[in-house]
């Protein structure tokens, strides 16, 4: 033990503290609340099974799209969000909570502040997950990736996350018995603060009833907010808390301190400063202003170094303990997890470089990258932690070390078997989509031509997924058997420790410097004291101040990107010919969102030769000003739809929705025949128009006569469809009353406004700040011509 005098001489601890600053501490008794850790650990395991099984199901749907014969609740578009939400918020979320509750109590040497809040948090979070699992298959969604849950659930998330979890955590920090806040706690603080900010601002919506809402942001701004959220959900939900987990559980499992505490501090601040800027790299070559994507790319590349610093710090913590890795399944999981962290955090910056992203974006490459991180980093770290926790939480031996080792190998092989073929599939897609023949034309003009090449890879993914799920099943068995051998009553050791002094400690004084008596300016003396950094040591033990500083770092960085994106009008030049959707198209857009079409189709033509040749004129920011929410998507299992309007006849769409394989044998789209057999509620269209009007769409007659206008447009489209051979009704539902017609109305509108002449402005009106009407390309002329020839809808749109 160091003496008070020795401590006083150590400027980096509590230098300058007079002994009188502390009074004799009062001894207190306490015990750790392991019951809540048991609850979260078991929930983690159960949701791991659900999340990975859902992933296996959607992987199967990609190779067997007709598996459920068009049953709407089990379509890919509805189940994929269920898989991602279950994996991220249920599996990884519960793992984070298990880690936080276990480690925080021990790092703070105190019980969680409130047992009631702990349990409200646990049951509240499980209720949220169940609500997600129920609503998503019913098509109740906001239509934004990883933020699909509707507003009542979002409100519940905010309450449970901040009100229960956050308050409990921060009050525990305030009441801790350990003066220094260990670095894992810093990562937890950053997680709680940033996820709150991201969740609240990305989910600002205008509700329309209990289960429907519309983002207050539109088009470009909505895309920016979504990927500011989406990328930082990865950063602050799937990275920082798991790094906290690593910095606590890895030293515990290896029984040695972290290799470099200094490196862990640098790791923390680097991530907090850098991560928040990186979101726009998800939108390279889109309608987002280039300055924003360049900024995102720059900071993404900078992320590589601190991330690898963290990985190296983790791996070197095992120095001198590698012999344990050979025998201890826990360390095996941790080593592979940290290695995948290094792989994913090298690949992430690489994918953010524009030239690489131009190839990889929208392809399976991104999917492989995501699963390398999610299964490799989050999955393996969670499993390692759970195996380490099992004997401690159940106070008995782990039932089978062999089964745990088997899980490790099956899981690792499963991950490798997943990512390798999907990387190949991604590269295949990217290269085939852009390949030209010797005449300068697309070598594979039809989107589905790539399918025969990637389908074998997708089948291997099914096998890999089966292995990974199999590993989770082994773990469930192991956990269950361990639980069975638990003692009749858990022991709860009682500890005694002095409370920290509640009174504010006197500000640390820097130790004397050589400049104190030197003939230099006062500033020099002040700087000599300041550079001893005693002030920084103080921050690290003041949780409120520390939290405020992390919040400032995150918010300031966000505002540097958000303010210009929202306030500078030049970022989104309006296009005079782009008009609001008609009432029927609005209804169709709701169906598009509910069915999760964005999970397979993008609506963003990038300014690349291969894309403009395949899809038409590249997308402009002003084309999306009425899109609440934006539907740009992030992958292309099917072709881009940004210029879909007028490309095919309404009858073609009708047939395609009914049976995609009848239209194109190689299609992997499921049937949406239920849309042809379900009626639209025309009365509800009025509410939809009012919501759009509140969000800025300049409606007039539509506010009064929305149902009539919608019906009129539906009749025109239905007449077109029936005239080409479709039956007048199907299962008792007239074509003109079907939801399919509304969806077709929306699809026929996509991307056509840009080519229309701008409406004449009233005499004397101030000229608007618009993007110049483009000189039409031959493709544009063709698209417009096709639209006018093939679709009555388009002309009707003009009239409406």
């Amino acid at each position, binding site marked *: 033990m160091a003496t008070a005098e020795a401590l006083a001489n150590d400027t980096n*601890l509590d230098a300058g503290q007079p002994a009188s600053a502390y009074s004799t*501490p009062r001894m207190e008794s306490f015990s750790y609340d392991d019951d809540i850790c048991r609850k979260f650990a078991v929930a983690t395991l159960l949701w791991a099974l659900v999340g990975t099984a859902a992933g296996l199901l959607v992987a199967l749907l990609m190779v067997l799209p007709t598996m459920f014969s068009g049953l709407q609740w089990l379509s890919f578009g509805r189940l994929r969000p269920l898989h991602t939400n279950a994996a991220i918020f249920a599996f990884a979320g519960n793992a984070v909570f298990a880690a936080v509750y276990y480690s925080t109590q021990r790092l703070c040497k105190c019980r969680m502040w409130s047992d009631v809040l702990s349990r409200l948090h646990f049951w509240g979070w499980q209720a949220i997950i169940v609500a997600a699992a129920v609503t998503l298959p019913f098509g109740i969604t906001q239509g934004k990736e990883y933020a699909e849950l509707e507003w009542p659930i979002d409100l519940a998330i905010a309450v449970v996350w901040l009100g229960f979890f956050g308050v409990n955590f921060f009050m525990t920090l305030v009441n801790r018995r350990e003066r220094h806040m260990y670095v894992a706690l810093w990562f937890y603080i950053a997680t709680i603060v940033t996820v709150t900010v991201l969740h609240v601002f990305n989910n600002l919506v205008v509700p329309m009833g209990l289960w429907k809402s519309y983002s207050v942001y539109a088009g470009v701004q909505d895309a920016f907010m979504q990927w500011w959220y989406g990328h930082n959900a990865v950063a602050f939900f799937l990275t920082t808390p798991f790094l906290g987990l690593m*910095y606590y559980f890895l030293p515990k499992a290896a029984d040695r301190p972290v290799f470099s505490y200094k490196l862990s501090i*640098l790791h923390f601040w*680097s991530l907090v400063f850098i991560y928040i800027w990186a979101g726009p790299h998800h939108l390279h070559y889109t309608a987002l202003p280039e*300055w924003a994507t360049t900024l995102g790319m*720059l900071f993404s590349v900078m992320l590589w170094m601190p991330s690898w610093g963290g990985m190296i710090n983790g791996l070197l913590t095992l120095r001198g303990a590698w012999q344990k890795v050979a025998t201890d399944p826990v360390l095996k999981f941790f080593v592979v997890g940290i290695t995948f962290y290094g792989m994913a955090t090298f690949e992430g910056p690489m994918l953010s470089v524009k030239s690489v992203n131009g190839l990889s974006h929208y392809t399976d490459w991104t999917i492989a990258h995501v699963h390398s991180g999610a299964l490799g980093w989050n999955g393996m770290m969670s499993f390692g932690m759970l195996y380490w926790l099992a004997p401690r939480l159940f106070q008995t031996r782990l039932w089978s070390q062999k089964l745990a080792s088997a899980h490790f190998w099956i899981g690792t092989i499963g991950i490798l078997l997943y990512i390798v073929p999907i990387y190949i599939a991604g590269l295949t897609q990217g290269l085939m989509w852009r390949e030209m023949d010797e005449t300068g034309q697309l070598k594979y003009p039809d989107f589905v031509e790539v399918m025969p090449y990637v389908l074998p890879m997708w089948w291997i993914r099914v096998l890999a997924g089966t292995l990974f799920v199999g590993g989770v099943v082994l773990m469930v068995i192991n956990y269950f058997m361990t639980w069975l051998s638990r003692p009749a009553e858990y022991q709860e050791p009682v500890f005694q420790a002095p409370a920290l002094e509640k009174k504010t400690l006197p500000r640390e004084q820097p130790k004397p410097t050589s400049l104190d008596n030197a003939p230099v300016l006062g500033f020099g003396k002040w700087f000599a004291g300041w550079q001893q950094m005693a002030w920084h040591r103080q921050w690290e033990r003041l949780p409120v101040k520390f939290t405020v500083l992390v919040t400032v770092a995150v918010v300031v960085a966000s505002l540097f990107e958000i303010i*210009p994106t929202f306030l500078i009008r030049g970022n989104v030049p309006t296009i005079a010919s782009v008009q609001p959707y008609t009432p029927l198209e609005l209804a169709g857009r709701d169906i598009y969102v509910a069915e999760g079409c964005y999970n397979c189709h993008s609506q963003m033509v990038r300014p690349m030769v291969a894309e403009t040749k395949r899809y038409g004129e590249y997308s402009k920011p002003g084309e999306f000003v009425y899109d609440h929410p934006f539907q740009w998507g992030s992958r292309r299992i099917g072709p881009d739809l940004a210029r879909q309007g007028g490309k095919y006849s309404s009858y073609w769409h009708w047939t395609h929705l009914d049976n995609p394989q009848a239209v194109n044998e190689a299609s992997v789209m499921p049937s949406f025949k239920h849309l042809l057999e379900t009626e639209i509620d025309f009365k509800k269209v009025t509410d939809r128009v009012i919501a759009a009007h509140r969000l800025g769409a300049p409606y007039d007659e539509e506010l009064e006569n929305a149902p009539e206008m919608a019906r009129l447009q539906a009749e025109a489209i239905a007449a077109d469809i029936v005239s080409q051979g479709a039956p007048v009704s199907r299962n008792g539902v007239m074509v003109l009353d079907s939801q399919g017609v509304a969806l077709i109305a929306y699809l026929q509108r996509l991307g056509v406004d840009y080519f229309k002449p701008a409406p004449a402005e009233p005499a004397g009106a101030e000229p608007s700040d618009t993007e110049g009407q483009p000189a039409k390309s031959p493709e544009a002329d063709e698209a417009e011509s096709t639209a006018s020839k093939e679709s009555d809808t388009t002309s009707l749109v003009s009239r409406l």
Partner: protein
Amino acid sequence: MLKDVIRAIDYSDCAEIALALFCVAFALMTYATMRLSRRATHRFASIPLSDTPEDPRDATKE
């Protein structure tokens, strides 16, 4: 007036300002971290190794 101010802002500067801010903050944190003594880092790094609060590591108890 606000509209004029907003329009007058050269938002392309935001990237440069952001980068400068980051560099300053990062340099400061790096410097602060490097000033940490070996004894302190060893003690902080050892915190997770013991669950029992025999040594609560409050300066008063050393």
